[in-house]
């Protein structure tokens, strides 16, 4: 048997490796670039909190932030309702083409983004949705729909069919059964998909970079890239900018770590 102390050391080393880069960025976000240039790895002596408002106001961060918030919240709201409706239907009704339709949606999980992105560009241009947050939101809904349906379907399928039968005998039509029985019972799974989709879309870069060019429409990941380009050598300022982008994710994670881990790992555990 390997001694426990050794295992513990391995675990500590790996943890430092995994978390180290973030700690480093966090220290740099509170130091000025001239301080950083002297020693990149020193602990901040004076905490330069003022860099945060600077980074926020010297760039278009408020715009990026607002855009991201708008796109993510609306996409996640629509995704949740539309995905839950489809998942409920797949889990609840035995009809002939059920599994075929489910597979059609599910298989899109493996599609490489290139296969749609060029045509999506063309389509959005055609309908005047290129360079618009509405267009990006629609694309985000389509991109996350398969995963959402997949996670919710597997949860809905575990709700005992007797509950639906009881509600039917109690006199409720199908839509109300979804609304008053399925959805409230599936609340934990719904919360999981909401948090998961929020994080994934908050971080999304490829579709945004293709579909948005207008400075005023940039989402946060585009904004950070832009900010990095502008500040280039100002490592301290970029670090502050990165922290601003990370903080919402960290906050969500702090409050919902279990839910999030569940969501992220939902597809993998067998």
């Amino acid at each position: 048997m390997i001694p426990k102390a050794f295992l513990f050391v391995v675990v500590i080393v790996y943890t430092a490796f995994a978390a180290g880069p973030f700690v480093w960025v966090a220290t740099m976000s509170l130091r000025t670039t001239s301080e950083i240039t002297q020693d990149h790895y020193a602990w901040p002596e004076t905490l330069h909190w003022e860099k945060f408002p600077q980074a926020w106001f010297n760039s278009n961060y408020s715009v990026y932030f607002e855009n991201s918030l708008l796109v993510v919240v609306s996409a996640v709201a629509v995704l949740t309702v539309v995905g839950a409706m489809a998942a409920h239907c797949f889990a609840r009704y035995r009809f002939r083409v059920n599994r075929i339709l489910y597979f059609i949606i599910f298989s899109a999980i493996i599609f490489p983004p290139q296969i749609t992105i060029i045509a999506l560009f063309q389509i959005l241009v055609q309908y005047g949705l290129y360079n618009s947050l509405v267009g990006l939101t629609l694309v985000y809904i389509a991109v996350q729909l398969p995963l959402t349906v997949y996670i919710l379907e597997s949860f809905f399928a575990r709700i005992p069919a007797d509950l639906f039968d009881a509600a039917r005998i109690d006199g409720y039509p199908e839509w109300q059964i979804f609304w008053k029985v399925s959805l409230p019972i599936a609340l934990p799974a719904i919360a999981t998909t909401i948090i998961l989709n929020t994080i994934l879309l908050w971080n999304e870069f490829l579709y945004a970079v293709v579909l948005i060019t207008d400075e005023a429409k940039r989402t946060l990941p585009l904004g950070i890239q832009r900010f990095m380009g502008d500040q280039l050598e100002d490592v301290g300022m970029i670090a502050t900018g990165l922290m601003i982008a990370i903080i919402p994710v960290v906050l969500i994670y702090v409050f919902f770590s279990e839910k999030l881990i569940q969501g992220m790992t939902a597809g993998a555990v067998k």
Partner: protein
Amino acid sequence: MPVAPRPGEALPPARALPPASLDRQPWGAIIAFLLPAFTIYIALTAYPVFRTLWNSFHKVLPRNEAYVGLDNYAALVQDEIFWRSVQNTFIWACASPLAEVSIALLLALALYAKIPGRRFFRIAWFTPVLMSYVVVGIVWVWIYNYDWGAANAILRALGLERWVQAWIGDPRIALPSLIFITTWMWTGFNMVVLLAALHALPSEVIEAAELDNCGWGAKLLHIIIPMVKPTLLNLLVLSFIGKMKIFDLVWITTKGGPLWSTETVSTYTYKRAFEWNTFDLGYPSTIAAVWFVFVLVAVLGLTWAFRQRDRLEY
């Protein structure tokens, strides 16, 4: 003796079976539930796929589309950069899963041995996957910085000066350096999943192995790995699919350079569609179409190779 009713006998004994009664389903409700999802799916997933396939047989210039038959495909076969990007992507998609999953398994086993503060470690290790590739990319560009990056700083501190190098500036090691980043990012994720799988194993089996006086290595090889095999295979496939799509990280760190050494199919498609001033969307669509087939074949192949011949019962 009272005669019990015999309802069955009232009918002729050999009746033709009634036509298969399909359950009447509330079709109205089914259609209403699926309509929004399929509208979105058809408009923004299925239609774009077909349009890309259509594009691949055309020269697609703004306001001018011309049928070119298989010209794009013929050009693609000759396109060395494309094949370089395919090679890079496949190297990435094959190396990453093996590295991530094997390291993750070892770490998960370490944590399985009841180390204090397990919850904390679990949360800490999971953090990298929550960050966007943009953030991760910028941080790692710094870590790989020749003058003051952490990678070289550590090597210098250890007295290994001759290993100091331009990690993402040297075509020979740029790709491994990027693969290292995704491994850093995803190992924690794989570990959390494996840990969940290990905890789902019945403890009696592992205890029984202990009683059988199995060595640690034998226990790992003959008991633990076979039992978490479904999860392991799943993680391999999942990691593979993820790396076949990789774009953001490359775009932020190297843009495919130096000298195409980190070009992936995603970055090359993007360049041909939106960066190079050829304005033709037909050729990049051909790349996408061919790659789409590659991915489908690879995933189907893996699923087939990894199919469970006999499900483990425990």
